């Protein structure tokens, strides 16, 4: 059993960037220069994540952690019955949350950017689409946080520390440590 670096530094930086820019964009929802800059930043970061999700190294690829709907449904049922498996990478529900958050972020950013063009300035349907895509994030981001906290408590590991700081998780199948700077207090007790 050893620490495995599941999330490399670029992925952790992208995640932090997306979290901060999305919250900044939502917080400045009335508009203005900061809102627009935050939106452009969200778009750039989402595009980067998509590029790496389709063509990057394996743990970051969407095919590595996004599961079919039926498999996800089975996971959800197991979660409800408190007997779900612990996943090294994003769990099936978390994986779909990633897909939804990236999609809504991209959709809101694209509609917002289009609205600022001469061709589409003032179009009521476009600004309505922009709002419709952005506001669900107010519910989904707290839900995402709740999911992370719940999984951390269930499997007794610090997932927030893993994604924001060191990117490492304990795994049985590895024999050698991969220089993960994780202290003893982060070691979870025996897996259930």
């Amino acid at each position, binding site marked *: 059993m050893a620490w495995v670096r599941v999330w490399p530094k670029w992925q952790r930086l992208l995640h932090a960037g997306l979290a901060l820019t999305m919250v900044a964009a939502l*917080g400045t929802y*009335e508009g203005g220069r900061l809102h627009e800059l935050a939106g452009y930043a969200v778009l750039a970061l989402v595009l980067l994540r998509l590029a790496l999700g389709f063509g990057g190294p394996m743990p970051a690829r969407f095919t590595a952690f996004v599961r079919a709907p039926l498999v996800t449904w089975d996971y959800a049922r197991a979660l409800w019955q408190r007997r779900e498996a612990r996943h090294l990478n994003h769990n099936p529900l978390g994986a779909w949350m990633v897909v939804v958050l990236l999609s809504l972020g991209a959709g809101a950013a694209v509609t917002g950017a289009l609205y600022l063009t001469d061709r589409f*300035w003032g*179009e009521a349907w476009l600004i309505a689409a922009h709002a419709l895509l952005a506001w669900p994030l*107010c519910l989904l981001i707290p839900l995402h946080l709740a999911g992370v906290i719940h999984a951390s408590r269930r499997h007794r590991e610090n997932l927030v520390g893993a994604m924001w700081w060191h990117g490492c998780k304990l795994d049985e199948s590895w024999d050698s440590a991969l220089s993960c700077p994780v202290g003893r207090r982060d070691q979870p007790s025996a897996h259930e």
Partner: protein
Amino acid sequence: MNRRIQGLLAAMTISVCTSVSATGLATCDSGPKSGWQPIEKLEKQLTERGWAVRRVKQDGGCYEVYAIDDKGQRVEAYFHPVTLAPVPTRPR
């Protein structure tokens, strides 16, 4: 799940999302709608000034205009519905 964390997350959602009511940049003391000039009159005035008016809506008792002005700039401007005078907007 820990009730305190649930409560905190609920509070976060609510505080971020419920200040949606007042999003306008100006308000007008404009009286009953019967005293308002028609939108078409405002549009005509602005078009004569060289503006390309994209959309006029009501916001905070004023007319809110989305247009491209005579200098080619995208503008979001407010006008008083009775006098059709421009209304200064609060900074965002």
